[in-house]
């Protein structure tokens, strides 16, 4: 496939080389070349990440932070190196503001439980938006149930864009925290998160940004955004599953009580009273996924080396191409047509349930997600039970989107 010919971004991102980095892509499915369009659920892994994990297990593995021996020190260095890489990746000021967790979900639960315990009381309010993933809804609902606080929901418009004016109106003297997706997983909407933070801070409300869908597709700078918390998952950033990151401003994290108790997070333990370690260790109870964190470091390095500016430019071309192809098919409706979008093509085919679309595309070797994408309130808003979602990453090609469009054509053929 020649990629050098069209457009500067395509020339800038060496697609052939990128694709060679992802061994899983070199296979067929149902006799057709695999077209992987489900990276928003979980992205594939480059050799660099796979090797970093197996090399670490082969040469450097031991438990971290407590060993007096050389191997443990080496493992600790590799683990802490990822913390520093992640700090740089997010533009945080200090590496102690980077906490390793299992996933975005755990990061949000950590903030809901720990920050929530200290700050949210009966009658208080927590503000989210109508386009949140379940993992940025349910932890807050649990907090509301435990405290008597109330969950408020900022509405979206028919294109799937946050109504900023409504969001601002819902920031009341009782609002204790706002939790907002940076990029919507079901719609692809890129939220104006800098404005969101400004509006919230003007009312003294801290902001958590759910960056699960944002970090693989945009440059994030937490200091520029001035957000108070930022959460993302390693596996959507071409890293391993089981590892996620919570960034939090140091002064907030320091004031928060521990989330889980156990080893690593303590300073001293007695049966009368235990004292806790400094951040980030206060929030990292138990032996973590050490090799997973090392793999996340390799993923951060990988994305950084390719360059997010190149990735953004290339994916924007892909998204335009896919949008044009799908919207030119009669009976296909895109769900989520925001002015600013990233990497998601969520759509419905007139008269055909997404589950049937998914099965037919699968027979063409095309992997898409069908269902509510853990965003049932979004589906309800758009009046559909589910959608078919094709999600893009840096390794996808224009030809794969053409295969998707041809597959949707087959769907219409079969269903007449």
């Amino acid at each position, binding site marked *: 496939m020649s990629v050098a010919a069209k457009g500067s971004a395509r020339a800038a991102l060496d697609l052939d080389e990128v694709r060679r980095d992802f061994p899983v892509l070199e296979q067929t499915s149902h006799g057709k070349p695999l077209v992987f369009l489900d990276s928003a659920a979980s992205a594939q892994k480059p050799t660099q990440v796979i090797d970093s994990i197996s090399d670490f297990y082969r040469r450097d593995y031991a438990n971290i932070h407590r060993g007096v021996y050389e191997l443990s020190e080496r493992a600790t260095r590799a683990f802490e190196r990822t913390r520093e890489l992640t700090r740089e990746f997010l533009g945080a000021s200090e590496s102690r503001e980077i906490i390793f967790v299992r996933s975005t979900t755990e990061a949000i639960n950590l903030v809901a439980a720990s920050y929530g315990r200290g700050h949210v009381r009966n009658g208080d309010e927590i503000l989210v938006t109508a386009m949140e993933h379940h993992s940025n809804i349910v932890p807050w609902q649990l907090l509301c149930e435990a405290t008597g606080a109330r969950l408020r929901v900022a509405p979206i418009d028919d294109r799937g864009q946050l109504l900023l004016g409504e969001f601002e109106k819902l920031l009341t003297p009782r609002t204790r925290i706002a939790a907002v997706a940076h990029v919507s997983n079901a719609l692809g909407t890129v939220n104006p998160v800098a404005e969101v933070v400004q509006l919230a801070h003007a009312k003294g409300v801290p902001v958590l940004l759910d960056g699960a869908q944002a970090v693989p597709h945009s440059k994030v700078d937490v200091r520029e955004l001035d957000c108070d918390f930022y959460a993302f998952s390693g596996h959507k950033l071409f890293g391993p599953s089981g590892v996620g990151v919570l960034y939090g401003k140091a002064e907030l994290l320091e004031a928060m009580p521990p989330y889980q108790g156990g080893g690593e997070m303590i300073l001293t333990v007695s049966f009368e009273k235990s004292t806790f370690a400094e951040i980030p260790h206060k929030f990292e109870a138990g032996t973590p996924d050490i090799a997973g964190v090392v793999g996340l470091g390799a993923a951060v390095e990988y994305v950084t080396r390719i360059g997010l500016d190149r990735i953004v430019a290339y994916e924007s071309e892909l998204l335009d191409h896919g949008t044009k192809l799908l919207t030119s098919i009669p009976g296909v409706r895109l769900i989520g047509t925001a002015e600013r979008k990233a990497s998601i093509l969520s759509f419905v085919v007139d*008269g*055909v*349930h*997404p*589950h*049937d679309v998914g*099965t*037919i595309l699968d*027979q063409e070797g095309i992997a898409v997600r*069908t*269902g*509510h994408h853990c965003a*049932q309130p979004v*589906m309800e808003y758009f009046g559909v*039970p*589910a959608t078919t979602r094709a999600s893009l990453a840096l390794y996808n090609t224009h030809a794969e989107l053409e295969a998707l469009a041809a597959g949707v054509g*087959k769907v219409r053929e*079969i*269903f*007449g």
Partner: protein
Amino acid sequence: MSDLRDLYQSVILDHNKRPRNFGELEDSNRTAKGYNPLCGDKLTVYLVLKNDVIEAVRFVGSGCAISTASASLMTQSVKGKTVAEAERLFDGFHELVTGDSSERIDDGDLGKLAVFGGVREFPVRVKCATLAWHTLKSALDGAGKVAQTE
């Protein structure tokens, strides 16, 4: 595409487009709801059960072609049957779509339901095909529980 044509046979596509016995049943004495959390398919089955015979059966719901057509064809095939006969049909249908049975299924007993034979090549779609039947069973049992495929 031959596999897909086995799955999406014309009878299935027809029942998806124009489901039979679709709608509520006002004088029903048994109802049950079914839910497939994997794909969000939801349906409600209404029965008039008298002297152990299914005198009337209707359904409402939304789902994929396989689940809608399965519900539609199910209502046709269990109407007028005794509870035991309906349960035997369910067993036969289940074997047909899962391919669990080592013996060759006698399609003749299942009648039109045999069009679902293609489902067994698509393991992730088995639950779509069986949701209506699980819901029927739940209605017959009268336990009032939501039938779930998960």
